[in-house]
C-alpha cells in the first residue's frame, strides 16, 4: 500500500503545484517575464491565511482574506515593478523579481519572526481516512477538491464569458486583444489578479499542511514552479497542469530512489536543468523559449 500512499501524496502535491504555477505561466505567456516573485505572493497568501484564521478562529475567513489581499499585491507588482521594465531584456525584470522575493522573504522574517507562525486550531487538516488500506488526509482531499473547483471555474470563465475568452486569446497571442475589443492592459491586471489568487490558495493549503508558515515557505516552491512551466511548455495552462502532476508524482516516487544522494527538493532542480538542456521549448508547447 506504500506505493498508493505515495501516489496520493504525489497527486495532492501536484494539485498544489498547479495552483502555484498557473499564475507564472500566464504571466510568461503574456509578458515574457519570469515572475519569480510569484513566490512572495504565495507566501503572503499563506501568512494572511494564518493570521486571519488565528485572529477570527475561522480558517475559511483566513482563506477569504488571502484571496482578497493577494491580487492587490500581485497587481501592484506588475504596475510598480514590471511595467516600467518591459522595455529591457527579459532578464532585467527577472533579476528585479528575484530582488523583490529576497526582500519580501526578509520582511516576513522581520515582522513575523524566524520561527514562523502556527495555526492555533487546525484539527481538520490532520484528520485521516482509510480507503482500503490507503491513508488519505483531509487536507489532501481538500487540496485535490480545491484544485478541481478552481480549475473548473477557470475553464468556465475562459470559455463561457466574453472577457474570459478574450483573455485566453490575448495570452496565446498578445497582439489579438484589440480585435476582441479588450483592453490589453486590463488583461495584464486580470492575469496578475487571477494568478495571485491561485497562488494564495496554494500558499494557505501548504501552510495548513505544515501547520506552519515560515519566511522561506515560497522559496523552493517558486523554483519548482519554474520547472513546471518550462515542462508544461511556457504559456500553456493545460501543459502546466499536466507537468504539475508529473512533478508531484516524480518527487513522491523519486525520493525512494535518489533520496540518499540528493535532497528531495533538488529533484526539481535537476529535472529543470536536464529539461532545459534537452528541450528548451518544453515538452508540450510549440512556443520557443
Amino acid at each position, binding site marked *: 500500500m506504500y506505493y498508493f500512499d505515495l501516489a496520493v501524496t504525489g497527486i495532492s502535491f501536484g494539485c498544489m503545484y498547479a495552483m502555484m504555477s498557473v499564475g507564472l505561466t500566464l504571466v510568461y505567456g503574456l509578458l515574457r517575464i*519570469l515572475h519569480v516573485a510569484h513566490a512572495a505572493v504565495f507566501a503572503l497568501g499563506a501568512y494572511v491565511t494564518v493570521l486571519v484564521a488565528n485572529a477570527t478562529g475561522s480558517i475559511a475567513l483566513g482563506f477569504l482574506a488571502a484571496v482578497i489581499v493577494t491580487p492587490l499585491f500581485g497587481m501592484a507588482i506588475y504596475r510598480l515593478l514590471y511595467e516600467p521594465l518591459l522595455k529591457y*531584456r527579459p532578464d*532585467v525584470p527577472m533579476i528585479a523579481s528575484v*530582488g523583490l522575493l529576497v526582500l519580501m522573504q*526578509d520582511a516576513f522574517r522581520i515582522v513575523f519572526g524566524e520561527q514562523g507562525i502556527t495555526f492555533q486550531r487546525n484539527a481538520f487538516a490532520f484528520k485521516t481516512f482509510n480507503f482500503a488500506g490507503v491513508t488519505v488526509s483531509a487536507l489532501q482531499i481538500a487540496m485535490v477538491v480545491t484544485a478541481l473547483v478552481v480549475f473548473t471555474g477557470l475553464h468556465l470563465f475562459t470559455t463561457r464569458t466574453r472577457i474570459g475568452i478574450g483573455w485566453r486569446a490575448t495570452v496565446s497571442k498578445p497582439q489579438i486583444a484589440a480585435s476582441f475589443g479588450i483592453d490589453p492592459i486590463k488583461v495584464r491586471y486580470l492575469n496578475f489578479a487571477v494568478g495571485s489568487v491561485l497562488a494564495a490558495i496554494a500558499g494557505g493549503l501548504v501552510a495548513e499542511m505544515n501547520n506552519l508558515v515560515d519566511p522561506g515557505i515560497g522559496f523552493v516552491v517558486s523554483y519548482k514552479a519554474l520547472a513546471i512551466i518550462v515542462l508544461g511548455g511556457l504559456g500553456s495552462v493545460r501543459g502546466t497542469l499536466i507537468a504539475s502532476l508529473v512533478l508531484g508524482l516524480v518527487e513522491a516516487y523519486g525520493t525512494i530512489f535518489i533520496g540518499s*544522494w540528493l*535532497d528531495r527538493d*533538488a529533484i526539481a532542480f535537476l529535472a529543470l*536543468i536536464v529539461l532545459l538542456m534537452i528541450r*528548451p521549448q518544453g515538452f508540450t508547447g510549440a512556443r520557443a523559449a
Partner: protein
Amino acid sequence: MSAYEISIISIIGINVILAVSLNMISGFCGQISLGHGAFFGAGAYAAALTMVGSGSVPLAIMAALLTGSLLGLAVGFASLRVRTDFLAVTTIGVNFLFVGFVRKQAWLGGEMGISGIPATGFGPVGNMTMILLFAAATIALSLYISRSWMGFAFRAVGEDEGAAATLGINSGAYKLAAFGIGTALAGLAGCLYTFFTQFITVDAFDFIFSVMLMAMVVIGGIGSTWGVVVAAVGLTLLPEAIRFVNDYRLLVFGGLLVLVIRLAPGGLTGMVQRAFLAVRRS
C-alpha cells in the same frame, strides 16, 4: 591592525574577486548567472580537500581554479542552449543542486562541512596580503579584458548574438570563454576563503549569496569594473558599519537591487556618468 580589521579586509578582497568575475560573465558578456556561489563553493571545497590531503598552497589554488572553471564550462554549455532569462534560471538551479548535493555527501562533510583545514602558514596578515594581491590581479585582468578585442566581442555577444555572428564572431566560443574565466576566478575566491576561515560549510555558498553578488554587480553598474569594485567594497562594509543593515541584510540588498534596476539601471557608474555629463553641460 586588529584581527577584526584583517578579517574585514580579507572578506572585502574575496568579495571583490567574486563580483568582478561575475561581472565578466554577466556584465561583459551579458550571460546572467545567479549561481556564482556554486563556483565559489566548488573552489572552496576543492581547496579544502587539497589542503587536507597535501597541505600544499599552490596545489590548492590550482585545484580551485580548475574545479571552478570546469563546473563553469559545463554551465557555459547551458548558455549555448537557452535564452538569457532561462540561463539565469538554470544557474539558480545549479546553485541549489550544488548545495543539495554537497549536503548529502559524507566525503564532503555533509551538513557539518569540512573543519580543521591546515593553515597556509602565512599568518592572518600574510593571508590578507595574498588575498589583496589576487584581488588586484583580478581587477587588472578585468580592465585588460574590457579593453581587448575579447571585451569588444563580449559586448557584441551580450547585445545581440545574431548580429555578432554576422560579423564573424562565434558567440558560443565567447560565452564559454566568459564562463571559463569568470568561474575560474570564483574558484580562486573559494580557495582564498578556505585559507581564510579554515572551516567551510555549504551554507556559505547558497543562492542568497549569489543574489548578493548579483546585487553588487547591478548596483555598481553592470559591465563597469570600477563601479563593481566600489559596490563590492561598499556593500561588504555596509553591514559592518550600520547595525540595521546587518540585521536586515537581505531586506536591504533585495531592496537596493529592486530600486537600482527600477530607478537607475546603469547603477552607480550610470549615475556618476550622468552627473558628469550634467556638470559638463552646465
